[in-house]
C-alpha cells in the first residue's frame, strides 16, 4: 500500500511569509507525528496527534507554529511569519496505535527561508 506522503517536496519562501506543509499518513494509522530536521542535527519532535485526542504540542518551538489534523487523516503544519532559522526538513510520520515506535516516515519537505 501507499506510504506516508508529504507535499511540497521543496519549498522556498521569503522571510515573513506564511507556509503550509501537508502530510498524508498511511490509511488506518491513528497516530501522526511532525519532526523537524535541521542541518547537521537529529530529528526534533514538534507535535503528535492520536485519534480524536487533544494533540501533544509540547515540541512546537514558538507560537508561529501550528498544526491541524482534519478527519483523523491529513495533517497540515503551518508556520507563520517565517524566519531564516525555520529552514529545515520537516518530516511527518504515522503509526498504528499500540505498535510503539513503528513510525513510518514520509520523504519530508525541505523548507528554505530566504
Amino acid at each position, binding site marked *: 500500500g501507499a*506510504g506516508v506522503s508529504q507535499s511540497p517536496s521543496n519549498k522556498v519562501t521569503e522571510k515573513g511569509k506564511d507556509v503550509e506543509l501537508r502530510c498524508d499518513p498511511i490509511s488506518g494509522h491513528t497516530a501522526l*507525528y511532525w*519532526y523537524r530536521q535541521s542541518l*547537521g*542535527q*537529529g*530529528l*526534533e*519532535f514538534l507535535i*503528535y496527534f*492520536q485519534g480524536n485526542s487533544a494533540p*501533544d504540542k509540547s*515540541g512546537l518551538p514558538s507560537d508561529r507554529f501550528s498544526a491541524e489534523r482534519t478527519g483523523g487523516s491529513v495533517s497540515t503544519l503551518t508556520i507563520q511569519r517565517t524566519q531564516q532559522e525555520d529552514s529545515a*526538513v520537516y*518530516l511527518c*510520520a504515522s503509526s498504528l496505535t499500540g505498535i*510503539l*515506535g*513503528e*513510525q*513510518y*516516515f*514520509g*520523504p*519530508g519537505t*525541505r523548507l528554505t527561508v530566504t
Partner: protein
Amino acid sequence: AQTVTQSQPEMSVQEAETVTLSCTYDTSENNYYLFWYKQPPSRQMILVIRQEAYKQQNATENRFSVNFQKAAKSFSLKISDSQLGDTAMYFCAFMPTGANNLFFGTGTRLTVIP
C-alpha cells in the same frame, strides 16, 4: 531529560566488511525502547531495528544486530557484510514507555566503499 549521543559523525567501511556504530543515551526511566533508523539520500527514514529495554537478548535483523548494554546505557549497531545500499545516515533513537515521541541522536553518516 532524555538525550541520545552519537559520537561518530562520519564512518566508512569497505564493502563486505563489518562496521559498528555507537550510541549512548541518558535517562532515568527503567522501561523504554531503542531504535536505529536509516536515512538514505531520498530522506525517507526507515526503521532498521528496535530493542525493548526489558529484553536482555540483543535484537537481530538479518545483517543488522545490536549490542545493548543497559547498565552502561549503550546501544550500538553492527552491520555485517556491508553493502553499497547501506550508505546512509543512521540515527539512534529512544522512546520511554508511554511517551508520545522519539528522541533522536545527531546521526552517523556511513559510507560503504566499493
